Each structure stands twice: as structure tokens, then as C-alpha cells.
């Protein structure tokens, strides 16, 4: 999973909340001597988490520096490169003569893109990024720090964002073209209507109505993260983890990876991309 956005939009907190564990190291902003990196960096951290006897190796890829500079031209290039490198690694393993039974899969299955809750519309940077990457990775747009907007503003903003995504031809996950049957389509339609999810993350617990809940405490009330009346965190979590996790992997493998593979093979005139770089002869 990869998550680009400007720093400070709550990426690390949200990931920690989603997986109920410290999988993402929260940076306390730029340390005194650290400057905002001149180019976008890619930092990848892996954890093995377990639930009900099921183990999962979760890798979170962070992209500090994205969108933070004055000139953000092509700041999506390092990210695009990283995603393609993972595909390349997998491809190399796949075409090996003696290949491992289970190829280590470092491909990015899902990209959570955090949209700034300005309340107006998407930023140009958002559109540029999503346009370029929606064909190589599953993008799930998320409205960060949703406690900035009232319910009305949130609905207006979501509608506008959806319209803009449509107008720009950006297909976010779950993509309409990959719906397999009518049941899938109706389920996914409901989800698409509700996206992008407006979320609030928190790793602190407070007492509300006798229960301990995750939330943010302000002078005028406590925002409960898992309360569906307050924000859509629960919906995002259910969607991402409880129902579509496997599907995300399948779409990545069957569609995005295959697209990449076909492109690579075509570049080499139908030859194995690896063999043509190793030897000068053609062999298939």
C-alpha cells in the first residue's frame, strides 16, 4: 500500500488506526535539522500482523516530500518509477528458468491518495498525479482530516470531487470496467457513490457514553473515529480490509501487472525482456 499526499494530512495516523497497530512510524514533522527533502523519497516499512490465526505481511510505502516543494513539476515520477520497478522485479522472477514456488510480491496493491479538505475542489497536483497513475495502480482517493468540514460541506465537496475525477477521465478503484457480474456491479456502484471517503484518524482513546473510543478531543466535542455519523473511517476500513483486500491484489495481478508485462514484451518485439538483455540471440 502506498500513500502520497502533502505532509501533515494524517497519513501515518490513519494507517495506524486502520491496522490498529503501529505500522507507520509517525514523524513529528521535520526534525530540527531535517529539511523538506528536495525530491520525493520512497520509504517502505513492513510488518507482519496477525488476527484470528491469519497472518498478513503488510508493507506501507510512504512518500515524504510529495507536493511539499514550491515547484512540484514531475514530483510523481519517483512514485511511478517505484511502482514500475516492483512490476519489473516480479516479471524477472516470473520469466526465470528456475523460479521460486512463491514469488515474493512487492508490488503495490493499493494507493491511498489523500485529498486536502479545502472544501472547494481538487488541486491541480491531485489531478496530474491521479491521471498518470490510475493506469498502473489501484488508486483509492481519501479525503483527509475530514473534521474540518461540516456534513453539508462534505457532501458538496465529495460531489464536486467525483465530478472532477470523471471529467478528467480518472478511474479510481473499484474501476467500473473490471466489474465481473451484476452483483459485483451493484455492490461496487454503492461504494463508488460514497467515495471518496472522508476520514479522520486517531490513536488516542477517550471515554464517550461509557465506552472507550478512538477520537480527537476539542473544546467543542469529541470526534469519534469509528462513529459513522461523524466520519467515514469505518466504511473505508470495511471496504479496504474486510471486503476488498483480496480483490485489490487480484486486480493488481490480473490487470495492472498484465498491462505492464504486455507493454514490456511488446517493447522487445514479443521476446522475453530479460533474455534479450542477457544474450543477443532471440529465443522463445
Amino acid at each position: 500500500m502506498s500513500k502520497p499526499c502533502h505532509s501533515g494530512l494524517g497519513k501515518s495516523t490513519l494507517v495506524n488506526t486502520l491496522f490498529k497497530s503501529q505500522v507507520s512510524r509517525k514523524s513529528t514533522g521535520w526534525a530540527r535539522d531535517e529539511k523538506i527533502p528536495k525530491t520525493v523519497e520512497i520509504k517502505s516499512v513492513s510488518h507482519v500482523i496477525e488476527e484470528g490465526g491469519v497472518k498478513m505481511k503488510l508493507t506501507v510505502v510512504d512518500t515524504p516530500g510529495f507536493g511539499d516543494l514550491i515547484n512540484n513539476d514531475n514530483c510523481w515520477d519517483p512514485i511511478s518509477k517505484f511502482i514500475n520497478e516492483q512490476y519489473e522485479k516480479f516479471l524477472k522472477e516470473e520469466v526465470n528458468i528456475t523460479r521460486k514456488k512463491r514469488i515474493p510480491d512487492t508490488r503495490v496493491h493499493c494507493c491511498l491518495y489523500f485529498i486536502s479538505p479545502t472544501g472547494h475542489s481538487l488541486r491541480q497536483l491531485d489531478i496530474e498525479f491521479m491521471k498518470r497513475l490510475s493506469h498502473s495502480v489501484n488508486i483509492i482517493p481519501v479525503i483527509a482530516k475530514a473534521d474540518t468540514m461540516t456534513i453539508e460541506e462534505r457532501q458538496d465537496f465529495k460531489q464536486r470531487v467525483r465530478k472532477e475525477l470523471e471529467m478528467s477521465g480518472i478511474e479510481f478503484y473499484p474501476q467500473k470496467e473490471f466489474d465481473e457480474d451484476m452483483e459485483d456491479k451493484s455492490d461496487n456502484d454503492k461504494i463508488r457513490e460514497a467515495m471518496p471517503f472522508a476520514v479522520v484518524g486517531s490513536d488516542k482513546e477517550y471515554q464517550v457514553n461509557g465506552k472507550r473510543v478512538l477520537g480527537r478531543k476539542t473544546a467543542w466535542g469529541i470526534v469519534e473515529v469509528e462513529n459513522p455519523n461523524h466520519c467515514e473511517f469505518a466504511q473505508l476500513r470495511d471496504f479496504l480490509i474486510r471486503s476488498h483486500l483480496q480483490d485489490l491484489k487480484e486486480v493488481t495481478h490480473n490487470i495492472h501487472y498484465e498491462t505492464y508485462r504486455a507493454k514490456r514484451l511488446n517493447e522487445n518485439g514479443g521476446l522475453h525482456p530479460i533474455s534479450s538483455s542477457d544474450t543477443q540471440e532471440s529465443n522463445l
Partner: protein
Amino acid sequence: MDAIMLQEKLVERLLCPRVRTARQKEKQYVGFATLPNQVHRKSVKKGFDFTLMVAGESGMGKSTLVNSLFLTDLYKDRKLLNAEERINQTVEIIKHTVDIEEKGVKLKLTIVDTPGFGDAVNNNECWKPITDYIDQQFEQYFRDESGLNRKNIQDNRVHCCLYFIPPFGHGLRPVDVEFMKALHEKVNIIPLIAKADCLTPNEIKKLKDRIREEIDKFGIKVYQFPECDSDEDEEFKQLDKELKECTPFAVIGSNTVVEARGQRVRGRLYPWGIVEVENQSHCDFVKLRNMLIRSHMHDLKDVTCDVHYENYRAQCIQEMTSKLAQDNRMESPLPILPLSTPDVDTEKLIKMKDEELKRMQEMLNKMQQQMHEKDQ
């Protein structure tokens, strides 16, 4: 010697103030204590003006805050552009002027808006249109001031710039630093933390500390509240101290009125509570309003006139004199100012007088020489 004494008495009479009449001497009261009232009456008649600039990315709540501060609705017919439409937009400067009146005092308020700032993918020098605008206003005032007819000078200089820092970051971003550094010697900058209702009190404190640190570190000169006089009472001094420690102000604005605690107040209604704009424990809106409008509006104007404008003017004159020296013209003691309305007739007159002076000087020189020869 009588003549001398008389002369002295005359000088005394002329230089000293009028001798009080016997009756007034008893009261020990001249009457100029009414001067403040006279000034007040004249100012109220003339009316006041104030130019405020708001800068920051779109969606920071600038328009809402301005509406909340001045209880107006300046942006009724605004159409928000979507991202596609904004792709080729450059930073614009838009002025809204509104005349408001309160208790007989008129204020002509001009809000200078800067849509498009910081919204592009490449924001290199996106502050240039803003610095150019501020310089243009200074230049226009400079010309008017140096002109011949100075009765109706229009003062369009920007008195204060509210800069909105997004609350989503971890402090100042590169674009914030560059913007403030480009403008801190041209205009009074007041940095604000926008949309403060998405931060918990702890987070606000951390962010404020962080921003203050970074402002020091980068040497940004934001507007400093003047020190209060030593003869003010303790309560005032305490309030003043609190105000200074609260910067940058974390503000929230609202265009809607909600019902809270039995009263109708400006606020934002969330499922988890109601944020009241004018509640001091919710945000610093009241502090900002008091500081900007109720106590320091005039000081902001003074600093603009006395410091920023004078800096500009000095720089301008320096450039002009150095240009003149380069052109190898006669070094004139006064810089030749570009008069906005060169009056041909008066110029002719000035030339004539100059020539006359030259002639008289030559004659004097001749006479002096003759006298010198005679003596010898």
C-alpha cells in the same frame, strides 16, 4: 540703546505666545485641551480608509474570515472554478471595496484578494504579482506626493496582509517562507493559522510554537505589536502580553449563524459539537478582530506610511540619483522628480528665474572684483 531695547521687546512679543488676558490668567486655562475633540470631529467628517490584503492557497477560508471580521458579505456572487479551469490560471489581484459605517464613523474598506496563489503545480515566484502590486501602489503614491496638485491623493497602499497558513502541515512550508520573505519589508504581515477547528488544543499549541520558531529561524519580520506605554495599567499590560504570546492566531470563520447555548451565534455545526467563532476558548478570532480593528488599525497604517513606504521612497530616490550620476549630468542638490503633470508654463517661469539669478550672481561677482581692484 533705546532702539535696541525696543527691538528686543518686539522680538519677544513676536516669538512668545500671546499674553493671556487677566481673566484667563485667573483660570490658568488656555483651552487647547479641546484639540483632541477638534481632531476627532475633523477625522470623523473625513472618514477613514483601510486596505487589507488576504493571501493563501484557495480553500483556506480567507473569504469566510473577511466576511466574519467585518460582518459583510463581499463574495456573494463568486463562482468557484474547478481544477480543470484553474490549470492555466495565474495569480490575479482582485479588489473589493465596501463602505461601512458604525456609530457615525465611516470606513472605506478595501480587500485585496489574491486568487490563484499557491494553487499551481509549479509555484515558482507565484508571489511576484503580489509584490508588483504593492510596489505599484507605493509608486503611485510617490508620484502623487511629488506632484503639484496634492489635494486629493488617493491612498491605495496596502496597510496589512493576512497570510493564511494551512493547519494540515507541520509548520511553515517552503512556499510560506518564500512568500513572507519577499513581502516582509513591503507590507505588515500577520500570519494566521487557517481552519483551526481541525486541530486539538495541543496540536494548535505545538503548531504555533513551531511556526514562531521557524519565523525566527528564517529571519521573517512579521508585524510586531508596539510595546504598550509604561503608564498603562497592569490589566492592559497583561492583556497585551497575552496577545503577543498568542501569535500566530489560530482562526475560524463562518458565514452561518447557529444556535448554541440558547443564543444565536456565528459558528459551524458539526455532528460532534458546535464551534463558535467568537468563543475565545474555541479559537483566536476575537483576539484577531480586537487587534486588527479595535486597537491596532491605526498603528498598522502608521507603520505602512512611516516604515514601508519610506523604505520604498528612499530606495527609489537612491536609484534615481545614481542614475543621474551615471548620465553625467550636473549634480543637483535635489533629485529631479518625475512630475506627474509637468506644467509647461511654470517650467518656463522657473527657467526664467534661474537665468535671472545667474545674471545677478555674475553682476555681484563683477562688482566684488571691481571693489577688490579699487582697494588695491
